[in-house]
């Protein structure tokens, strides 16, 4: 499996998990939702963020190739780094979220950010060397 396929695999995994988290949030289950006992505390606004960014990740996985895909994965990492810092600074995102983000949410944000940055960086290096 080449590094390009690995970056596609990561974008697919992140996209599926984020879209699933976004959709599950609307169901308001005990795992994810706005309930007080929910494992991953979200509200509809937060669900939309997960859903939209998940769709972006899936577009990166299946709509882009080569260097463009690697660069986009890196950019996706930057996007989630911004989201992580913003939600860490204000768990309600300055009043936009009605439910404050909890620890698992922060872990999801930083995991997506760090892995995307690492995978994108390495995939860019591979694509560059292949171009030569």
């Amino acid at each position, binding site marked *: *499996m*080449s*590094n390009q396929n*690995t*970056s596609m*695999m*990561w974008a697919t*995994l*992140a996209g599926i*998990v984020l879209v*699933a*988290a976004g959709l599950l949030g609307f169901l308001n289950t*005990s*795992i*994810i939702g706005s309930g007080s*006992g929910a*494992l*991953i505390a979200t509200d*509809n*606004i937060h669900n*939309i*963020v997960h859903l*939209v*960014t998940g769709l*972006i990740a899936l577009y*990166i996985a299946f709509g882009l190739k*080569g*260097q*463009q895909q690697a*660069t*986009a994965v*890196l*950019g*996706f990492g*930057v*996007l989630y780094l*911004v989201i992580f810092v913003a939600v860490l600074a204000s768990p309600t995102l300055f009043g*936009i979220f009605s439910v404050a983000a909890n*620890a*698992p949410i922060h*872990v*999801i944000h930083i*995991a*997506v950010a*760090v*892995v995307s940055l*690492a*995978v994108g960086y*390495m*995939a860019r*290096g*591979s*694509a*560059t*060397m*292949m*171009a*030569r």
Partner: protein
Amino acid sequence: MIGHGGHESVELLAAVVLVVGGGIVTLRMFLTRPRRTGPAASSGRGPEPGHAQAELPSVRRSLSVILAGLSGGAAVIHLAAAPSHYVELGDLGAGFLVAAAFQAAWIRWCLAGPSRRAALVGITGNVAIALAWAYTRTIGLPIGPFAGGPEPVGLPDGASVAFEALLVLGLLPVVRKVDLGAAHRRLLREAASIAIVPVVGLVIVVTSLATVAIAVGLDHGADAHVTGAHVAAP
């Protein structure tokens, strides 16, 4: 519902999938990355710019995608806000449709490669739209639910005007004829290509939230909704 023990056992479930999956992907990628061989590796030199950048879009291309994203976000917000403003303001609400149409049409002009003429039209149009917004937020319109006074700033209009301000800032280098295609701007080229996803991604996220806010009648902010000052679209 699951019990407390179950709650603890499934804690961090989604996070674990991403952390473990991400760890495996990163490790696999690190182990299978191609090793650099030959003179470039031994000398410690980086890849040659000509080859390394071959697949990267130019700064101008990246900039045009980012600017198109900003214009698209503002257009969607204006389009979503049009129905409720027709109810509030009558024919004056057509301004939202005109703004949306202008910003949507400008995307195609921008993606064709933002010429100086396209940039000037983009700046003029978006500054005019932003000034109209500023008028309603400082002096106020003589008609509508906030007649005679300034309207409160909400997420949708705040986001839209932020997109327009960034769009105008991004067009300034084009108007000033800054050479965006210069070969020595390698770092700028890389930064611009990486910036596409975070900037356009944030525009898509904020536009989605703004559209939802309009749909639930919060386009003038929560306070206006609570006091009943805003007339929601039917």
